[in-house]
């Protein structure tokens, strides 16, 4: 059954879109990650224009993260003060990111830059995750000491805490500089616009290991800022680039919601390091595919660039 996506300007199999949403939802439920970084490249692979894929993914992230954010807020797991500092960074970064998308699209190199950033980001994350989980599996077999690389991470956190503009964050029990949370928010905001990701896979480790937040508060605060940062990116992509396909976002949400329920059930049956190594392999496979897209001779050397704003 075909469905016509009004902003993407194309007809696509309904089950393919919902299926991709379900697949990513399943993986995200199983691994406990957002999945935006898998969703955008997969949509591009089925022919959705890259700019529409990224912008509609942001819209879907607003929906996918909002219920989690609401639940964590009710449980008191959101550090609103720290979340707002990160959010200011996220809004600044997201606004810059949307303008960057506009410029890159007019230069005809949005897809190129997007893929380069994806390759770098997924390559780094995938490799680090693969090595870390492999080491954990080896160490668990050899019964090693529990200490991993915490000392160096703590050192980094202390270094950032020495920066000016110190603030007290009661919920996290921290007295630290606002510069680092703002900066990481800004970086994730740029990436949200450029790649259509929520950025939780960067934000949560940074909050825990560098800022030093308690894990549950980091997750709650991350969801809070993801909803608002993605909402800002969705709004601006719709306004500036006219690339948000609400219908596409809705279909993805439909699939991902159901997929996530099954993924979470499967995830409970697997060990943490097994889950991470599996995710690392998926991420690295995606990286290789995107890298090959960049270096292999394209089928057509000529492509259409958007003459004005608009996804079609």
């Amino acid at each position, binding site marked *: *059954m*075909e469905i*016509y996506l*009004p*902003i993407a*300007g*194309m*007809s696509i199999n309904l089950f393919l879109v919902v299926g991709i949403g379900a697949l990513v939802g399943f993986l*995200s439920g199983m691994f*406990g990650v957002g999945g935006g970084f898998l969703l955008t490249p997969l949509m591009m692979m089925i022919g959705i224009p890259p700019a529409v894929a990224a912008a509609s993914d942001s*819209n879907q992230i*607003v*929906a*996918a*993260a*909002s*219920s*989690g*954010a*609401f*639940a*964590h807020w009710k449980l008191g797991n959101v550090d609103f003060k720290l979340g707002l500092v990160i959010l200011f960074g996220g809004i600044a970064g997201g606004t810059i990111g949307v303008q960057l998308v506009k410029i890159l699209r007019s*230069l*005809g*190199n949005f897809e*190129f830059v997007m893929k*380069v950033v994806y390759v770098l980001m997924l390559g780094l994350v995938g490799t680090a995750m693969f090595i870390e989980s492999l080491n954990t599996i080896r160490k668990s077999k050899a019964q090693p000491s529990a200490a991993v690389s915490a000392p160096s991470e703590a050192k980094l956190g202390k270094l950032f805490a020495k920066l000016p503009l110190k603030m007290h964050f009661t919920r996290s029990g921290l007295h630290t500089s606002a510069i680092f949370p703002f900066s990481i928010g800004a970086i994730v905001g740029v990436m949200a616009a450029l790649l259509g990701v*929520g950025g939780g896979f960067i934000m949560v480790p940074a909050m825990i290991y560098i800022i030093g937040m308690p894990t549950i508060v980091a997750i709650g605060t*991350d*969801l809070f800022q*993801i*909803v608002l940062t993605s*909402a800002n990116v*969705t*709004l*601006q992509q*719709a*306004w500036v680039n*006219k690339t*948000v396909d*609400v219908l596409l*976002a*809705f279909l993805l*949400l439909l699939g*991902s*919601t159901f997929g996530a*329920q099954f993924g*979470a059930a499967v995830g409970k049956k697997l060990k943490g390091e097994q889950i991470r190594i599996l995710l690392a392999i998926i991420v690295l496979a995606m990286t290789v595919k995107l890298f090959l897209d*960049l270096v292999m001779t*394209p089928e*057509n*050397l*000529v*492509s*259409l*660039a958007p*003459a004005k*704003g*608009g996804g*079609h």
Partner: protein
Amino acid sequence: MKRLLFVILAACLVVSLGAPAWAVTPQASERVLTAASKNRIEIGLFYKGDVVHLFGANPVPGSDLIIRLTAQKEEELKLSVKGTFGPFWMTVRQYAVTGIPFVYKIHASRPIGEIVSAETAQELELGFPAIKNRMQMHLIRGEAGPNDADLVFQGILKIKKEANLYNIEEGPERLTITEGKLFSHYFRFPPAATEGTYLVESFSFSNGELVGYGKDEIHIRKVGLEAWLTQTSQNYPLAYGIGAVIFAVCAGLLVGVIFKKGGHH
């Protein structure tokens, strides 16, 4: 049965003489009477393209037919040309291209080159070489390459053919002519054929001379949710963006309530 249908249609066409849908070019002395199975195509939620059947009466029995589908709107394209940058392929120059039809499909009873001379084909813009001659391009970024005109045109052809917007079919398989007079065929409108007015022009040739001409109009427009979403996103982008966010938050919270697990991220 099929023949009877053609006779009835031809009779209807004769009755409808004087309808404003067709016009005669200066060269043509006769009218090619045509009728389409539908003149309006609506893009709804489950739209996957459409097919329009066309019927007509050839004014000079036994003459050749060339039928062309184009869009009324002219396209202004901005094209990116990829080149190597170290090991990577990226956009190295861009062209603004005009004079290219948005859609261009031809059904001919025989190969165009056997029906008309190259000059006539050029004059009436029949065939891809004529389109290439019409194309105008100017460099807007980067340095021009020696074979860019050819590269750009072939690139456009490939993009358009893949989207099923360009196509030339020469032979009786697609264009059936009964007893040299009544003809029928169909044009497939792909999902990429967006809103607008499309023209189906029928040219009749005898010994290479244009002896008849007819024209039909097909209108494509979005309806319902598709029309509303497109118009709002283009005309009221800020309101559309706010609506998209509110819709997402409500949908997300609803999902959370349904599954009572707080969703995922």
